[in-house]
């Protein structure tokens, strides 16, 4: 195996990253979002007298905090536009639409939003547009569903203006990737699927890393010499987990331990079960307890846990450099 080519077919898998991006909004953005919930669009007056829309917290020229809110119209003029033939997930439409920079009447800067037309020939810079409001406002920029061609402001259903001011905004983030294992990791993961534990080193006699790394972390050289290790080792250090937490799969107390496989130079984290948690100690000899073969995948979870072998403890000197 050589770095810089694909002599080893690497493993890959979809990786989907999802989280709610939750932020406090402060007084100015908060007022803007509260306004949107009431179907009003607010700007803020800048140091040069311009009305900045959307409202922003600090003056772009002087950096001074801004405070004077100014309501502008829900109608405006397109300053620039671009066509989206194939919308991406999360965008306001799942059919072709336009993005536009729109200068609302009463504003001196432009707001970025979606523009609902079905064909780019319906678009022109300077065209007049109006906001189309979402049915259920929540205090978000998406309370404006989009803009549409038109002069008169579209009628909006009444809103509940007794609600508390908007103080938080939550944006769901959902991104998709292809995660690729390194060549060494690919060999390691394929080994696990066959019940083998494979470490890597840069040269014969060199330090053995388990799992193998993309490069030797001590000198940056490739770790292409892959060696099979036994499923027996020594507990170098450990902790007893007594605290319950979200997502926990084993009832506490249990032991999370660093296990140094025989012949490896770096320990890895796994479970030690099969004895009282209070009996686990540094130097304890342990062996892997594999799950039934039919449950194996490309994962270290193929080893359900480690259990004591009953051998005499390893001498401290044998693992003191691997703590």
């Amino acid at each position: 195996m050589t770095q810089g080519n694909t002599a080893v077919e690497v493993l890959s898998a979809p990786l989907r990253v999802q989280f709610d991006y939750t932020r406090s909004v402060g007084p100015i953005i908060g007022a803007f979002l509260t306004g949107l919930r009431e179907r009003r669009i607010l700007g803020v007056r800048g140091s040069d007298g311009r009305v900045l829309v959307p409202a922003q917290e600090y003056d772009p020229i002087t950096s001074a905090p801004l405070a004077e809110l100014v309501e502008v119209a829900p109608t405006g003029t397109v300053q620039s536009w671009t066509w989206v033939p194939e919308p991406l997930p999360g965008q306001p439409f799942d059919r072709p639409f336009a993005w536009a920079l729109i200068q609302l009447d009463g504003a001196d800067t432009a707001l970025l939003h979606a523009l609902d037309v079905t064909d780019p020939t319906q678009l022109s810079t300077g065209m007049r547009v109006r906001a189309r409001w979402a049915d259920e406002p929540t205090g978000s920029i998406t309370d404006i569903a989009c803009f549409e061609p038109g002069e008169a402001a579209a009628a909006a259903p009444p809103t509940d203006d007794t609600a508390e001011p908007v103080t938080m905004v939550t944006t769901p983030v959902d991104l998709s990737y292809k995660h690729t294992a390194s060549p060494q990791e690919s060999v390691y993961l394929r080994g696990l699927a066959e019940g083998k534990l494979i470490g890597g080193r840069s040269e014969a006699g060199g330090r053995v890393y388990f799992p193998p790394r993309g490069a030797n972390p001590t000198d940056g050289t490739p770790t292409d010499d892959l060696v099979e290790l036994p499923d027996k080792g020594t507990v170098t250090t450990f902790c007893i987990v007594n605290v319950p937490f979200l997502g926990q799969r084993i009832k506490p107390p249990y032991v999370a331990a660093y296990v140094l496989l025989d012949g490896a130079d770096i320990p890895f984290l796994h479970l030690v079960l099969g004895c009282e948690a209070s009996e686990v100690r540094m130097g304890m000899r342990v062996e892997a307890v594999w799950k039934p073969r039919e449950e194996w995948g490309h994962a270290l979870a193929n080893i359900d846990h480690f259990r004591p072998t009953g051998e005499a403890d390893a001498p401290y000197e044998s693992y003191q450099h691997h703590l």
Partner: protein
Amino acid sequence: MPEIAVVGFAHAPHVPETFGTTNGVEMLVPCFQQLYADLGITKSDIDFWCSGSSDFLAGRAFSFISAVDAIGAVPPINESHVEMDAAWALYEAWVKLLSGQAETALVYGFGKSSAAESIQQVLTMQLDPYLVAPLWPDAVSIAGLQARAGLDAGRWTEQEMAAVAGGDIEALLAAPYVADPLRAHDIAPVTDGAAAIVLAVGDRARELCERPAWITGMAHNIDAQALGGRDLTRSPSTTRAAAAATRGDTTFDLAELHAPFSHQQLILAEAIGLSPDTRVNPSGGPLAGNPMFAAGLERIGNAATAIISGDANRTLAHATSGPALQQNLVAVLESEDR
């Protein structure tokens, strides 16, 4: 203050997709090995390390820490990171050297753009998270708004945009729009890549390199974040950075401009005040290969290489980061005999 020069540059091949991991190790190790061999040094000759990359591009947290494996951090090293194009990591290293805290530095950047299902969607995470990102505008659309603004204002034409891409302009203009008014040739390709530069001070630079590329000016600047609050057809932050870095002398043998969209090269050349005699992007520029978070560093590397090889005496490098040319860096490089 110490004189500081670029003495070495290496980059990974520009490819649409690599086999490697998002921590860049597979692309970086050959770059480092090449620099060590070219300069006759080892890792222990480097006083300071600084990288640029993005966790959002990798789709996982602290991806730059795994990249440190490519260095080999035993014994411990001085290391830092910026979540921007690595040109800004080079700026940090330059400041480190200017302040006398180091005599050599190795700067690197990496990005596996192909890992994302849509790199254009991932770049939405660079936008204002309150009022813009919740709509999920993508990077090509943002550039499209900028391009349209310039076309409508008469600042450039679609022909001039195509001329930046080069080739048969009539044929290019016959192609369909990808995101009206942008065609495929106006948009940098999705590129995986990595790049690395070695900096050194004074006589150490002269030991390592026959013709060091001396950094005689470097500055970076930023425009207001509100996309609709500034004239997108101009880049005042580039003008300010260029004024500080060039001190008014804008004659260059060549300039490497980091313009991921064709019209942005037109904005930049004007903002810097480049003379028509200056060769722009002889490397092909980002429209030929745009390794995210390394492409700006590569502009500096290419501009330096022209001096190191004797092809040029005075060059300019520009890097950008963020949407619609929001943040811009300009560096001036000169040979000793100038």
